[in-house]
């Protein structure tokens, strides 16, 4: 039976080969997406493993074996910034010859030496010294190898110090080995989050892909069923027919798997350059494990064979032919209930936020899950409503035929796009939430004004006055540093926030800072003094969310005066330096370089924008993934639709070709196909996106009391690009119409 199946698949003429190739192409596309998803998960894991050393702590998850005998190493890791890009800076100082060496370098840098990653080496050469290179005194003695970097674009520097010098740094720690266990994506505080997101994206893409493969296997189903009926007539059992169908599907899937691997390896180096997670990959990161390869090679053909057997169970193939076409039962309005229930649940929690994370996850998870499943369940009913409306209102034959066909079997029409529902719902909801949270975050950190103020806070170490008094979080700032800062083009003001020793408690931390109103007046984003005041209090600035918002409130009425002589302020230790700039890269980066060089053992200076940039980089990674999911799912859905359209055309080629013979213009038939495919696509895309955004809005109202901010232009561009791609794919099937409805078809059928 297997041999007969192989003969029927491979040696029964052009139509069989075309069907084989079409199914193989669908499988190849699906396998390609599957392999890219698996390789993407592996790549993120590889990135995390390579950069695990940057998450080293005193208690590593996986310490090295020689930890017990190693000499301690003083190490301090910080996130520096340049022009919005994050530079991972690691300061190290050996205490003996057996101090651990980070990966990617042959030996520890000595005092006055540093290693830089290739991308940072290039940046150090190309950027003006005063904006970057002056932060790292000494000389570069080599580049950091790829084995220590997340991506080819990673900016990493390892700076050497004397142990006595680095021991003074407040965040320096003594370590005996570097971490080697992956703890999640680079810069990700939550282990495995990116992998989880990738897994969700892969899942969201896989559903449309599986549906696409299913659609492809139904190509010319009517013709194949006729053949199977003929075989039943000459004595084949249902089991034998089923076995032949399984052989056909397996052969096509096997060809598709091979082609899918070819597609993956062909595109791997291009895909690696796409910053799906915010950073590009090394091409070798997008690799497959043997388990992945085995799963695909065995699993896909086996699934295809199983699907073919299951598909045959849907039609009754008797020796007298397949069951005659009758009107299938209509989907009922009950199908809308889960969707409405999901939306209603999310709406119910507005103003009733559940207490505790578990309750929130349960509440919102159920709502989102219900809405998503509800969309899939309601899809055929919604498709039927839309198509009935179209057929009822149709004034032209194309709309009438397309509407009737869709209304005739809305389940089949919806099946081709049901994967899109899941992908578009998830993507729209995620993007809506991400955009709103990002907007909320940006607004709460002072927007542009916040990003233009560079702050050097000294809260990391106590200050000892000459008379032995310990003042928490303070330093002395030489006048030369202030003068140097003020001389930088683009720097508009330099304000020192002083600590008043009398209100600071070494046990409780620093009290509110004091600032001269004259200085404050030149940095209005920090607030303003009430008229007549010379000195006022200000929360000593830490670039954290909320500070500047609080200052905005104070700005309205003005900060109250403090009874402290302005001329005595310079005698007080300094809690923070605020550098107001015009926002130019030169001003911010030169000021940052001056501060880093002046206070090498203190916290690195930062703008609020730097903190936001760090989060934004990660969020941007998610957003790009969501965009990729939208475009890919729309494209795959279009492929499914195109295959369904082609299958529908092949199955209806006799009535269509006879219509054409009788004078029906080809344009009318083209309209039929276009409407049959475009209507469900557009209807479903609009419904899924709308419900995704609605669910996001309800979630934001309930959880954050925020209204949904419209997703950015990127979202609309992604949807538009996906739809254009989809409609283009559908249009690609139209030439088939001319060919299969030509006079020859009617003559030969």
């Amino acid at each position: 039976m297997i041999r007969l199946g192989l003969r029927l698949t491979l040696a029964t003429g052009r139509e069989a080969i075309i069907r084989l190739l079409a199914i193989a192409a669908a499988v190849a596309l699906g396998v390609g997406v599957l392999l890219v998803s698996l390789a993407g998960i592996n790549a993120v894991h590889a990135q995390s493993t390579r950069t695990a050393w940057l998450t080293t702590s005193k208690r590593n998850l996986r310490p090295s074996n020689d930890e017990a005998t190693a000499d301690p190493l003083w190490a301090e890791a910080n996130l520096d910034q340049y022009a919005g890009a994050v530079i991972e800076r690691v300061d190290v100082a050996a205490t003996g010859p057996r101090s651990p060496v980070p990966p990617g370098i042959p030996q520890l840098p000595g005092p006055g030496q540093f290693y830089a990653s290739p991308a940072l080496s290039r940046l150090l050469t190309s950027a003006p010294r005063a904006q970057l290179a002056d932060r790292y005194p000494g000389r570069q003695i080599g580049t950091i190898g790829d084995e220590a970097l997340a991506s080819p674009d990673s900016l990493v520097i390892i700076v050497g110090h004397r142990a006595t010098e680095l021991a003074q740094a407040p965040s320096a720690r003594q370590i005996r080995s570097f971490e080697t266990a992956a703890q999640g994506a680079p810069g990700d505080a939550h282990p495995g989050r990116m992998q989880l997101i990738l897994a969700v994206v892969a899942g969201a893409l896989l559903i449309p892909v599986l549906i696409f493969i299913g659609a492809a296997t139904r190509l010319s189903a009517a013709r194949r069923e006729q053949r199977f009926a003929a075989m039943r007539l000459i004595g084949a059992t249902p089991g034998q027919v089923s076995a032949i169908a399984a052989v056909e599907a397996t052969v096509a899937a096997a060809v598709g798997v091979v082609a899918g691997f070819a597609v993956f390896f062909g595109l791997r180096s291009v895909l690696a350059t796409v910053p799906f997670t915010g950073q590009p990959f090394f091409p070798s990161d997008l690799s497959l494990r043997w388990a992945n390869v085995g799963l695909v090679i065995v699993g896909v053909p086996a699934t295809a064979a199983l699907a073919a057997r299951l598909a045959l169970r849907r039609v009754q193939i008797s020796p007298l032919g397949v069951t005659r076409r009758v009107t299938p039962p209509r989907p009922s309005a009950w199908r809308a209930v889960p969707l409405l229930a999901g939306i209603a649940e999310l709406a119910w929690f507005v103003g009733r936020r559940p207490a505790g994370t578990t309750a929130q996850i349960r509440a919102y998870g159920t709502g989102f899950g219900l809405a998503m499943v509800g969309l899939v369940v309601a899809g055929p009913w919604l498709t039927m409503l839309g198509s009935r409306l179209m057929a009822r209102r149709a004034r032209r034959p194309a709309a009438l035929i397309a509407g009737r066909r869709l209304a005739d079997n809305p389940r089949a029409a919806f099946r081709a796009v049901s994967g899109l529902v899941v992908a578009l719902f998830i993507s729209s909801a995620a993007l809506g939430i991400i955009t709103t949270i990002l907007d909320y975050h940006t607004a709460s950190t002072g927007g542009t004004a916040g990003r233009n103020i560079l702050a050097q806070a000294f809260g990391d170490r106590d200050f000892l006055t000459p008379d032995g008094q310990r003042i928490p979080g303070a330093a002395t700032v030489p006048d030369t540093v202030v003068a140097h800062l003020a001389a930088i083009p683009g720097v508009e003001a330099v304000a020192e926030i002083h600590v008043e020793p009398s209100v600071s408690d070494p046990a409780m931390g620093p009290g509110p800072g004091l600032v001269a109103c004259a200085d404050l007046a030149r940095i209005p984003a920090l607030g303003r003094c009430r008229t007549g005041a010379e000195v006022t209090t200000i929360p000593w600035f830490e670039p954290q969310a909320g500070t500047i918002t609080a200052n905005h409130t104070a700005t309205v009425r003005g900060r109250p005066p403090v009874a402290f002589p302005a001329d005595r302020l310079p005698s007080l230790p300094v809690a923070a330096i605020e550098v107001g700039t015009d926002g130019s890269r030169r001003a911010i980066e030169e000021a940052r370089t001056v501060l880093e060089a002046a206070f090498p053992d203190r916290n690195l200076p930062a703008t609020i924008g730097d903190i936001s940039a760090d989060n934004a980089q990660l969020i941007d990674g998610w957003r790009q993934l969501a965009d990729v999911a939208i475009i890919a799912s729309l494209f795959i859905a279009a492929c499914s639709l195109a295959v369904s359209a082609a299958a529908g055309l092949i199955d209806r080629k006799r009535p269509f070709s006879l219509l054409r013979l009788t004078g029906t213009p080809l344009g009318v038939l083209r309209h039929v196909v276009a409407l049959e495919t475009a209507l469900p696509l557009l209807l479903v895309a609009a419904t899924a996106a709308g419900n995704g955004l609605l669910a996001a809005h309800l979630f934001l109202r309930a959880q954050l009391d925020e209204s949904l901010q419209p997703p950015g232009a990127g979202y609309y561009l992604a949807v538009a690009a996906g739809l254009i791609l989809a409609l283009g794919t559908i249009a690609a099937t139209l030439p088939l119409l001319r060919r299969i409805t030509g006079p020859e078809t009617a003559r030969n059928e």
Partner: protein
Amino acid sequence: MTADRPPVRQNDAPPLIVATDVVKSFGPTPALRGASLSVAAGEIVAVMGPSGSGKSTLLHCLAGILVPDSGAVWLGDRRIDTMGEAERSALRRERFGFVFQSGQLVPELTAEENVALPLLLGGVRRSAALGDARAWLERLDLVGLEERRSGELSGGQAQRVALARALVGRPQVVFADEPTGSLDSLSGEHVMELLVAASRNEGTTVVLVTHDARVAAFAEREVVVRDGTVGAQLHQATRS
């Protein structure tokens, strides 16, 4: 055959369709080798012949579906074989009606929508088109089946719906290619009676391709195609 033969008519009307020396080949296989035929307005002509003789090809050339390799086909004073595809399509849509052996109904449409289709294609308003379609379904004994789809109709009913669709646009010529080929003799006879009656009432010319002598007997004239040429012609009067 139990039905009465149609009355014999000595047709002296001017020719509506004229084909002269039509040659048509499909690759190396010749289908027509210089076929000539003239059909008068309002005449019912049966084209007969064994399988592979070229009778369907001749019908397709007369209807402007196929373009002959050589020779000429005229409809009145218009030469069809030199027209472009768009013009021939328009001609088929506006002047001709077609009935085929089977499978010509759009499966998703109801019977009345299938019949209304040519009118809708011609720009007739939907309500008017459906009204005309219902009237034709009534004339062809299909009352009550308006909302049925092709899969829910018997073979004879489906052919009558196809006949209604061919006639609803009041064409000058109906081309019928084995219209009863998939029907039992009673159903086939009923379809032919309806076709002949309707075309007589409307004054429609009918070119009927069949290999069944009982079907051909409904025509006023029979022509026989053999090896790609039109051979013997037999008027009903002569035969009877």
